[in-house]
């Protein structure tokens, strides 16, 4: 028995070492950094322990802006992208001709390089000396006046950000949902049809509950992914996100570490822990809601 469990531990050792070095140690380190007050990265000294880092971060207008941006992004893009993916998947699974073709088209953004996607958005939205971007061209066509989507008003920038995020996450969600829809046994639809069930009721009472585990999975991972948004913002607004007012929580953490005003691992750690608590809370709420509405077979 002793020997057996020794062997087990031995097999686990590589994984434990790896996880220890790259997950557990940084995690503990972040916790420690976050309570070290007045840490100086050059001399690696600090005054003492306390909650000052947290109160600093929570009063920092850049952080508050980042929180606001992140929450807006989450609240708008997660539901919207999930609903859109669901509608597109429903449409995809109801057509017969060219089904594979459309599936491929919808999945293309997923395998496309982020920078290429960024370029497309430039062409669509960015003002250059030569053009105002295609969207502005459209607005002109309908008699509106140009909007600067990249350096203009906050709502315009947020709009671009949301569209970009939705566009990036959509393909994966469509992929998951089309396969979820395809896995529903058609005999349920037959039975419902014999009873004269309307298509809306079939969707609400049969399809939706049956694919609810997959929707739930997408919502959870969608929330977590959106809370961690950062690189997409950089792709559109450049690296100085604080200046453009479009920073996110992860962006703030990065800036605190390596940005032009960086070198504050304690503030970064405090912000990271705050993000952790937020994500944890939201995920718990999701789990609670799902207990009632998600049906596992």
């Amino acid at each position, binding site marked *: 028995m002793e020997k057996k469990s020794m062997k087990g531990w031995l097999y686990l050792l590589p994984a434990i070492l790896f996880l220890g070095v790259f997950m557990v140690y940084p995690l503990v380190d972040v916790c420690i950094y976050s309570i070290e007050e007045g840490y100086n990265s050059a001399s690696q000294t600090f005054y003492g322990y306390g909650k000052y880092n947290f109160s600093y971060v929570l009063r920092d207008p850049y952080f508050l802006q980042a929180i606001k941006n992140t929450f807006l992004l989450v609240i708008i893009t997660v539901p919207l992208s999930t609903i859109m993916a669901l509608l597109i998947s429903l449409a995809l699974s109801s057509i017969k001709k060219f089904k594979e073709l459309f599936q491929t088209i919808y999945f293309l953004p997923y395998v496309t390089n982020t920078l290429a996607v960024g370029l497309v958005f430039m062409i669509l939205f960015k003002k250059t000396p030569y053009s105002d971007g295609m969207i502005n061209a459209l607005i002109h066509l309908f008699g509106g006046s140009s909007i600067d989507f990249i350096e203009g008003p906050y709502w315009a920038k947020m709009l671009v950000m949301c569209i970009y995020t939705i566009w990036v996450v959509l393909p994966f969600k469509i992929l998951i949902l089309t396969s979820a829809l395809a896995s529903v*046994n058609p*005999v*349920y639809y*037959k*039975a*419902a*049809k*014999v*009873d*004269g*069930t*309307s298509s809306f*009721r079939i969707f609400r*009472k*049969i399809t939706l*509950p*049956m694919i609810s585990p997959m929707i739930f999975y997408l919502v959870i991972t969608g929330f977590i992914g959106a809370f961690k948004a950062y690189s997409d913002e950089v792709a559109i607004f450049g690296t100085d996100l604080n200046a453009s007012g479009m920073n996110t929580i992860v962006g703030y953490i990065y800036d605190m570490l390596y940005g032009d005003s960086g070198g504050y691992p304690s503030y970064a750690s405090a912000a990271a822990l705050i993000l952790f608590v937020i994500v944890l809370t939201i995920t718990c709420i999701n789990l609670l809601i799902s207990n009632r509405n998600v*049906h596992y*077979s």
Partner: protein
Amino acid sequence: MKIRLEKLTKKYPSRDRKSREEVTAVSNFDYEVPDGKLIGLLGPSGCGKSTALNMICGLEKPTTGRIWFDDDDVTDLPPEKRGVGMVFQSYALYPHLTVRQNIMFPLENFKGKDKLSKEEMMAKADEAARLVQIDQLMDRKPGEMSGGQQQRVAIARALVKRPRVLLLDEPLSNLDARLRLQTREEIRRIQRETGITTIFVTHDQEEAMSISDYIVVMNVGEINQIGKPQEVYDSPVNLFVAKFLGTPPINVFDGEIKNNALFVGNDRILENTGLGDQKVTVGIRPEGFLPDPEGSLVCELSSIEVMGRDTSVVASHPACQASSLRAIIGSDSREGLKTGEVRFKIKPDKVHIFDSEQVRIS
């Protein structure tokens, strides 16, 4: 209500994309289902039973032909306008709903003046549940019930809106042998109690024979024979029907009519057939053999199996199409039987003679 099926034909485009040929699943299905009876639609797998049922139900549209419910032409009506209840082989109970919600599901679809109050729906669901004796389990989910119980829920759900026709597509195939026996009696009882015209699809001939008022035997999309189970068993129209009905199956021999007598191999087993000289196929039911030292059919007995009341004798005969034949004899004639040569007298009414087209001629 009687159902008239008029030359129903269903062709599917081939599943194989390359071939353009159509698959004829059902062809020229012509039958008038009598009111209030239980009909067994019987045939081997893939012969078009489900397709025929789906056309009656309205899930499939016939390629040609018409369907009449009494005097209404329902061919172009969707299922819900026909008033049919359907039970599927896999039950198709919604797994996320309770038994009560499952049974109430069809009622909740009623619109306009047919709309029912919550209380009325509850009452109807309770009534249907009592009929199939699952009223104790109303708050369970299908996953928490046995196959037999799920089957009853499916029947209750099909009956709750009081359909004019009840259609069951292989409803017992997913049950184990004992439950199958029990549940088929149950279906018979429910049908009698409600008096609802019922069509019961199965590939199990014993099942169909035991509960049906009439059986319809199908083969490759066509009706071969319709009749009371015993009639069809006693006078099958062709070799297929003769082989398909009965356990153990009928024993088939190559035979010949010579001088008005029937020969199987060299054995002259029947006189006065009234048939002209020809090659024939001969079917003898297992219960048509009587061990008799004077008997005309000479076989090689290989084993004797005692199965409770009856005894099954396995033997061989040179003209038998299978490698062995099986006879069922009463326990009183078992005495003295042993392996080696054995002679049987043949009961004439258990012998069927088929011509070269496999149509029965006697």
